[in-house]
């Protein structure tokens, strides 16, 4: 009971601290902008810890953060192997292939109005396919190793990327295109000098959406068959063995990897589209 009361107190304290920070004049500084979410995160972890202990929640239902942290620290080699298998091979492999193929297809589609009219609705329809359904099929087709995971990722990221890129390539204004006409520019000249740069914000939007999709796709696909390594494998096996601390350690890895992946793409985006109003602040 004491712990529960303490948890409520911690929550109030964290919120109070954040209110002070967020409404202070310093709230626009970079430090505070990082500090506030950090305090929020730490508060949530503390409350979680206290509630789990205070309410004596069973270890096999929800482990406390401290237990998860301990497991994380003691299982680094396993976590690394799983990370390499799932993220580096499956997710990243599929991401590169899927986004690359979508980009090339987008150029093709964009060249022909007919294709664009025909392919985009079909693409939207296919994008609505729940991948949980395609995963067992793709495992059957591409085997148990990372190739099938990459295939699932390709299927997941292809259409969001395609739709974004096609939209981006059409982003130029009539005036900008007319300008190219007055120069009697060829297709590829106007592609590289106008349409591609103008499309970049959209392309990056697609790339960003695809990061989380890639991660989720690779992990989910492992539930449908995998070698005895991988984050999805570990999660499902560990649930069966009631090793919930291990499950959460893997979830932490997924969240870290996902955020880092997303952050990286966002960083690259910043350096490529520095000129876009949304990046100029």
């Amino acid at each position, binding site marked *: 009971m004491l712990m529960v009361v303490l948890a409520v107190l911690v929550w109030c304290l964290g919120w109070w601290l954040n209110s002070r920070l967020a409404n202070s004049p310093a709230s626009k500084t970079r430090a505070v902008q990082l500090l506030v979410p950090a305090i929020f995160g730490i508060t949530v972890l503390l409350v979680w810890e206290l509630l789990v202990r205070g309410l004596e929640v*069973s270890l096999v239902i929800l482990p406390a953060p401290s237990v998860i942290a301990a497991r994380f620290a003691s299982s680094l080699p396993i976590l690394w192997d799983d990370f390499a298998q799932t993220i580096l091979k499956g997710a990243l492999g599929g991401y590169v292939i899927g986004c690359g193929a979508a980009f090339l297809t987008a150029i093709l589609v964009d060249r022909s109005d007919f294709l664009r009219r025909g392919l985009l609705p079909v693409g939207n329809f296919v994008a609505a396919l729940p991948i949980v359904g395609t995963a067992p099929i793709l495992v059957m087709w591409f085997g148990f190793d990372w190739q099938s995971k990459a295939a699932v990722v390709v299927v997941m990221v292809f259409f969001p990327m395609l739709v974004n890129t096609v939209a981006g390539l059409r982003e130029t204004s009539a005036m900008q295109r007319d300008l190219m006409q007055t120069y009697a520019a060829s297709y590829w000249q106007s592609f590289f000098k106008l349409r591609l740069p103008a499309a970049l914000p959209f392309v990056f939007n697609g790339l960003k959406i695809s990061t989380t999709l890639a991660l989720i796709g690779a992990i989910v696909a492992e539930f449908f*068959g995998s*070698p005895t390594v991988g984050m999805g494998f570990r999660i499902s096996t560990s649930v069966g063995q*009631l090793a919930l601390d291990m499950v959460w350690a893997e979830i932490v890895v997924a969240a870290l990897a996902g955020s880092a992946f997303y952050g990286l793409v966002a960083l690259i985006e910043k350096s490529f589209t520095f000129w876009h109003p949304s990046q100029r602040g």
Partner: protein
Amino acid sequence: ADDVTLQLKWVTQAQFAGYYVALDKGFYEEEDLNVTILPGGPDIAPTQVIAGGGADVTVEWMPAALAAREKGLPLVNIAQPFKSSGMMLTCWKDAGIESPEDLKNRTLGVWFFGNEFPFMSWMSQLGIGTDGKGENSVEVLKQGFNVDPLLQRQADCISTMTYNEYWQVIDAGVSPDELVTFKYEDQGVATLEDGLYVLEENLENPEFTDKMERFVRASMKGWKYAEENPDEAAEIVLDNDASGAQTETHQKRMMGEIAKLTAGSNGALDPADYERTVETLMGGGSDPVITKQPEGAWTHAITDAALK
């Protein structure tokens, strides 16, 4: 009536016919019980459900139950309707596998999610490693929901149950002559399957034990009825299958095979079988499933009262 929730280990199929028959035929009602049957699924760990209080009693395999016990979740076997194990390894004959020794350097499909323990014990007893291909090791795949890895020849052998997956291989057009099977029973590494487990702390509550006595009595009545009327039992299972995916032939055949496994059990756990299971799980090399002799992992209290 008293409420009882039963968590199954897997989806609705003839493997659990006894419980569905007891429900359908009103055996539970006769015992003044209001039973809810929760089907399982690929990602549901019955042990976790019972730990969370989502069910009163669950159908589980003993290796998983004992492993959970070591993890600090005190599950107790209160009844054991299944006498023998239905687990086996099914291999392509043309892959050149004749004896367990030939498994070395092969790719094998294995169920995980707490169902890998019997296989791991067996391999460690054979002294075969499970961490990749090699002279003295096998490559293990986490087998999905179906028998595709064998049919697609992605694996040389896969895990099957005598009553289920084996027949799916046959249904896919493979003739039994093309296959070689290794039953865990025959290999002497059989572990107990499909027992009824409850939380130890609940057994201190007389009301609960009373409920369980009535539950086990009615369930065994259901099992005996199912054994005697396999076709009707299969129909009852089909009626209860909400997914509409099960077929009549498959369930009738499954019921026939299940009856072979339940035969010889009156519901009470045979301590000898228990000893053999524990021995199998503890035996063998470096990585045993359980490390110390379990205490109080089973009781006859319920069956004694229920079956007298």
